[in-house]
């Protein structure tokens, strides 16, 4: 055991506080910047105290958007991001829990092949296979649609692996007891396995929601009309204006709004999230 000394405690706290400050300061700057008018940034100095334009900034971004940099109102983009993040999270969880169930509990021909094919997708993230994936999505006529935004990102193995590892820790006797109790494969899945996976599903949901929400490259590639833009793309478009100064106040307003849904998801599911990562309920 480590001895407890007051000065060690103090040191530990100092390190932790320093860490929090380093992480929190940029967020603070973003929040403060979103409360200033457009001219407060011309001086080159970043303001550190709240300004008076918060309400105006947020109202204009939510209702009108920033037409000069081709950004539609944020409401639509937030909605698109939400649809994308939720579809990816639910789609991945549904597909991966079913495939993990098949791989762990059923003996079928080419089971090992199926397993290794899933495994291989782990090594091929979207960025690597972006050109062929784009071609496939284009040929299927899915460009500029929600389906095109989400389906290529749903196919991946990480979640399958997590569920597989979890299923392997579920005692085999549980399945045998269920068989003797007259539960078929689907009933066992629904009545036993799914409830036991509850915390894992919650943890994965949080991770996948943020993964989907933060997607940037893929939505950029396949969306061409502003009605399908996501919020993360919007930030980039606004800060990347040609022949003008970026309007940092509204960019930061957008950033703060884009930050909120993941924060809400994390805070709301924190209890289950932590449980899912550290505890197995058996």
């Amino acid at each position, binding site marked *: 055991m480590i001895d407890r000394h007051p000065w060690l405690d103090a040191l530990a706290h100092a390190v932790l506080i320093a860490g929090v400050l380093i992480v929190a300061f940029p967020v603070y700057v973003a929040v403060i910047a979103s409360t200033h008018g457009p001219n407060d940034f011309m001086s080159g100095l970043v303001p550190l105290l709240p300004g008076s334009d918060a309400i105006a900034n947020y109202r204009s971004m939510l209702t009108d958007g920033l037409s000069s940099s081709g950004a539609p109102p944020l409401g639509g983009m937030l909605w698109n991001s939400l649809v994308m993040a939720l579809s990816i999270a639910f789609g991945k969880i549904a597909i991966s829990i079913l495939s993990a169930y098949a791989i762990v509990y059923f003996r079928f021909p080419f089971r090992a092949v199926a397993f290794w094919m899933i495994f291989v997708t782990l090594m091929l993230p979207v960025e690597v296979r972006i050109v062929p994936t784009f071609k496939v999505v284009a040929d299927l006529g899915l460009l500029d649609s929600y389906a095109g935004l989400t389906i290529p990102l749903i196919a991946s193995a990480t979640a399958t692996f997590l569920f597989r590892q979890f299923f392997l820790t579920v*005692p085999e*006797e*549980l399945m*045998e*007891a*269920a*068989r*003797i*109790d*007259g*539960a078929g494969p689907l*009933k066992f899945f629904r*009545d*036993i396995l799914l*409830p*036991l996976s*509850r915390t894992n599903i919650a943890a994965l949901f949080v991770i996948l929601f943020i993964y989907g929400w933060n997607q940037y490259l893929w939505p950029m590639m396949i969306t061409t009309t502003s009605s399908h833009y996501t919020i993360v793309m919007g930030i980039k478009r606004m800060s990347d204006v040609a022949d003008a100064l970026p309007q940092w106040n509204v960019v930061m307003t957008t950033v703060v709004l884009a930050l909120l849904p993941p924060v809400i998801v994390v805070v709301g599911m924190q209890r289950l999230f932590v449980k899912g990562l550290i505890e197995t*309920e*058996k």
Partner: protein
Amino acid sequence: MSAIEITGVSKVYAGGVRAVSDVSLSIADGEFIVLVGPSGCGKSTLLRMIAGLETITSGTVAIGNRVVNEIDPAARNIAMVFQNYALYPHMSVYDNLAYGLRNRGVPKTDIDARVAEAARMLEIEPFLTRKPKQLSGGQRQRVAMGRAIVRKPDAFLFDEPLSNLDAKLRVSMRGEIRQLQRRLGVTSVYVTHDQLEAMTLADRIVVLNGGRIEQVGRPLDVYHNPASTFVASFIGSPAMNLAEAEVTGGAVAIGGQVVASGVSGVKDGQVIVGLRAEDIQPAAPGTGVPFAVRYIEELGALRLVHGSVEGRHLTMALSPDLPLADEMKVVVAADRLHFFEDGSGRRMTR
């Protein structure tokens, strides 16, 4: 309630490992059978084949005159109690008991009544709303038993149900299982590696070794007439003393030292002689065989004295009030000796 008929059953795993070889066994209606043997002897495999959790390579298993080889576990109308209880962790005790009944479409009022009855019998009524996690090991064991009882099965199958309990609880649960089985009169097959559990629970013991049946019999028959050196060394604590011996004209010699004479019905030659620890006792002054004491184990009511006769290790069980010495003279009860063939280890008829 049904008889179980096992005929020529074998189990060969995909890798060619032979877990059970040509086992035949008739279990009468209401009988309590204990399968006992060391780990890897095939006892659990045999039980799981009766349950339907393991396919049968050859032979047949019939429960109540119906061959069940191809019948799903749920349709065999058996109930199984697992070593780690296998309770559904996310369900309350009530739901754990009711789950199997619900799957069979038993009416709700009927389920309530059956669960209540089983809970009363096992004294788990206060816990019905709790989760298994909130129960102690003994209580979980009761719930697992309850899940078996509510099914009103043709047979109970127990797979080392007491191994996860502490020693004291094991003894009391053992008694309860016995009483419960007597009261319900349900045919039971119980797997254990603990010979004491086998002795105390069974109507008949089945000793398995290497996938084959070594002996079937009532506990005391198996104890007093072990069919082989394997059974002799497995059943009874302390294990039966086994030593190579030479028989010449009714005199039994261990390492050249004659320990008993006047033994009839045993042919001259090399044998394995078996003698229970309680059948070796100190000799009257001036008689007996020298016995070099090595160490002593105090059991309270008994004292186990480990030592040797002519270098062959033997254990005797003495009353604690008998005096001890480093070098003792002992006498063995000639009429209680067991003789086994040298080599095969089979019991020799006398």
